[in-house]
């Protein structure tokens, strides 16, 4: 496939000191769920319609934690396999949990690449994104550290998640949970008012199309 459909929505949520006061996992998750399902506002459909496979490969090469040189081909095989078309091997499912055959090896990499692709945008949504990659921490959260082109002193911590399922709120909540944990430590080093959080969730449920939900958190003391 040469181009893939790209449907993206954007919301913002206010982060308060109360969101960062708990250390118990279940309470952090509860806060994250509340942010995703109740507090996120300003729903906006972003003006993206497609991504070229070379753009996807380039973004994945720069953002992904693991090497994935041709994520587009992995996805094409994944979508074909899901339709029942045999790929390299016949589907062999032994009932082992979390070892489903229908899982794309490039799933996480694609989620990270798409997060970079959207947030780097300086053409369609230069007013809300136009971020630049600062570094890609390996083996730790967040997935990407970025800064605003207009003001390099303002940072953005990005957590990307991807799922084969259609529903995005679950993975978005996971991403916000991890961001809350990072911000709990980050506030010891930096003024949170100058650091935004971006939770980016991607669904590859629909063949040939990426559905992405971006949630930006802005800290207000």
């Amino acid at each position, binding site marked *: 496939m040469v*181009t893939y459909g790209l449907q993206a929505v954007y919301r913002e949520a206010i982060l308060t000191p109360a969101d960062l006061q708990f250390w118990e996992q279940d309470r952090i998750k509860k806060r994250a769920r509340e942010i995703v399902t109740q507090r996120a506002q300003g729903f906006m459909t972003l003006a993206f319609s497609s991504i*070229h496979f*070379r753009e996807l490969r*380039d973004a994945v090469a720069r953002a992904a934690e693991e090497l994935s040189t041709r994520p587009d081909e992995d996805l094409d095989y994944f979508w074909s396999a899901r339709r029942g078309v045999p790929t390299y091997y016949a589907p062999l499912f032994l009932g082992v949990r979390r070892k489903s055959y229908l899982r794309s090896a490039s799933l996480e990499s694609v989620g990270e690449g798409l997060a970079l692709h959207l947030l780097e945008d*300086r*053409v369609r949504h230069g007013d809300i994104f136009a971020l630049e990659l600062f*570094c890609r921490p390996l083996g730790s959260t967040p997935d990407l550290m970025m*800064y605003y*082109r207009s003001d390099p002193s303002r940072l953005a911590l990005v957590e990307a998640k991807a799922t084969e399922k259609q529903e995005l709120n679950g993975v978005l909540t996971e991403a916000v949970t991890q961001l809350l944990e990072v911000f709990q430590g980050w506030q010891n080093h930096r003024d949170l008012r100058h650091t935004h959080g971006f939770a980016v969730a991607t669904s590859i449920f629909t063949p040939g199309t990426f559905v992405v939900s971006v949630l930006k958190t802005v800290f207000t003391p």
Partner: protein
Amino acid sequence: MKKIALLAQWAGDFKTAQVEYDRLFTESLDEGDPVEARLLVTPGAVCELVSSIEQGEAHPVELLKEIIARKEAQIRSRFAGKDQSKAEGEDLIREMLEAGRQVAQAVRDLMPDSNAGENRAEQHKRDTPLQLVSNERFVSVHSHPRGLETRSYYRADITVDLEATKERLIQQAGATFTGQTDRMLEVEVLGELLEIFIDGRVRWVSEPQDPNRVGKLVLEIGSKLVLRA
């Protein structure tokens, strides 16, 4: 600027990346910003190491120790004095030493006994990518499973006017375009596809051929990019 350091790394221009990281690291120390310094110290050391290996450094682990020691002295001199400041400096040094150990181990794993079984000079000549520079455009040509991979970037934060570039390349280079988005052009050159990105990066994967030829061709195409004001 952080962007130049990252672009330079992408293109394999490790010397420029090192200079940028070192400058940013020194700035962050001068501004008393240990968080920023933490994020910059290891990439700078790694870029200096890689750049030296490309220039034929035979003892990379020893060189890494020297680089770390130099940066440690720089941190100690900057954070000497007040207790809180000193503690921040010690934290930074501890993290840098740990990162240095990981990098040294990676070097040992990736370059085990590099002198064994082969003439080192020959090996170095074969493995070192071709690099060309002209008017701030840098080009490197690496080996690739399909032949050669050429990567190029411009040593400034630029935005390419893709529409105007497309017109110019059609008129002046007889280029054929096979794809275009708002951030990328896909150009057919000598039967192979070349990618031009909005931030000035150019990437080309081509069949095995003279690296000088592809390097100069990418340099030529790079010189024709139209930049936005």
